[in-house]
């Protein structure tokens, strides 16, 4: 199927996809992610400063997309994995975002699971590999 997120369109969102850059409202101080033209919280300000988010949060809700039900651009991934989890992540800075979960068994996924952002391959379109954020369970630090 033809492209629906063109390369230039994807490029414009690279700060969000590569570095989770949110917009902090200069009036109410809350963070908008993805970016909004007018702050979604105070609905009054259009003045923002860019702030990278920590990528820390927890699973707010989730689904498991079955192989047969995946969008065409994710068919390859679905074929290899059989199915893949998609979650809404509650980020610690306030916003929620939708993203795939990785490095996790189906049985481990539950609402409230602490997760962190990782930089991963999303899909390929127009011959260009698209990278962006996915989330994995928080890995406890290695003990010496």
């Amino acid at each position: 199927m033809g492209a629906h997120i063109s390369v230039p369109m994807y490029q414009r969102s690279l700060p969000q996809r590569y570095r989770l850059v949110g917009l902090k409202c200069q009036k109410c101080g809350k963070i908008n992610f993805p970016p909004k033209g007018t702050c979604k919280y105070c609905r009054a300000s259009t003045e923002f400063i860019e702030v990278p988010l920590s990528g820390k949060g927890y699973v707010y809700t989730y689904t498991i997309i079955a192989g047969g039900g995946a969008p065409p651009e994710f068919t390859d991934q679905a074929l290899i994995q059989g199915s893949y989890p998609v979650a809404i992540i509650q980020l610690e800075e306030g916003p929620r975002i939708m993203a795939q979960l990785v490095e996790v068994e189906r049985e481990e996924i539950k609402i409230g699971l602490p997760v962190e952002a990782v930089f991963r391959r999303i899909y390929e379109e127009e011959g260009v590999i698209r990278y962006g954020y996915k989330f994995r369970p928080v890995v406890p630090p290695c003990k010496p």
Partner: protein
Amino acid sequence: MPEVAIIGAGQTPYGDFPLKGVKELFAEAYQEALASVDKGLDPNLIQALFLGSLSAGNGFQLGQLAPLLAGHVGLPDIPAVRVENACASGGFALLTAVQAIASGAYDLVMAAGVEKMRDVSSVQSKYWLGISGDTEYERLAGSTFAGIYAAMARRYMEEYGLKKEHLALVAVKNHRNGALNPKAQFRREITLETALKGVEVAYPFNIWDCCSTTDGAAVVIICNAKKAKDFTNRPVKIIGWGAGSDYLAIHDRDSLTSLKAVKNAAQTAYQMAGIKPQDIDFAEVHDCFTIAEILAYADLGFCQEGQAHRLLEEGVTSLEGRLPVNASGGLKAKGHPIGATGIGMACEIFHQLRGEAERKERQIRNGRTALSHNVGGSGGSATVFIYQREGE
């Protein structure tokens, strides 16, 4: 403000019609609507067409679909426009038509909807149907509409103790109703066991939690209520209407167990009609996925938030219950030809309120006031209409 009445309504059967395109489907619904006007209607009195359609069949006619179809049925001169809000395209076409009458700008207009979905390959349809959400931030997470509603269902389970069985009860009820509707796409009952065991689509949904793709068209003819008696002694008034919108992406919304667009639309409609949810005798609601009907119960005021699954357990919304919901079979069993859906609901209610259901087993008795509820995508937009027949 002039009152608005429906004087005629028609729809094609919903299903799989390889020999009919959008023109033929629209013409069939239009002719049935004309024929349903008790005292007859001179088509020259129709002043405008408001047509709901998402894509006419994978976008083969990207622009000017409404003038194309008007011309096909001998109305090439009237203003005709396509109205689009994904799965609520029909509802918003009806809203535009109703407002056109209520504003006094027109006396008699047509609201219609059409979709040709079965011509489209499954790859194409997954492409088309997945891009009415927030494409950049939902679709690129690898999600689908089923996945988005499934995530809402999973959250509802967490917050309110909803079980997979409750989702299945919606499918069983609506298939039972669809079995009685000669115009439904799926006219067979399913057991609870079947509904629980389908192929997984997006956990917690299996195939029985999801509506199908459908060909179909629907037309309603509405007019200034003062003139309705020229055409029929049994008009059905639209006594209240409302619409709402919300963030397209569900991650931008505060609640995932309620659709704010629906709540706002319902509140506006009830207020205009001067009635309460308890006054509704039956309803057609947007059950694109089983959870959507469950969300609708509380959003429309039929129960408290989080209590919807109790209504299903108690059979309140079954055909014999106190408040039948989706007597037509709903999107689940009647089918969901996207642009036609919101208009098809108005057709069902028009005929039910006039005691004209095709089979007496599915005729709702003593219904006087009814409601229809049409949702765009996962709740990015919604319309609610309240209908009433005359008499007690």
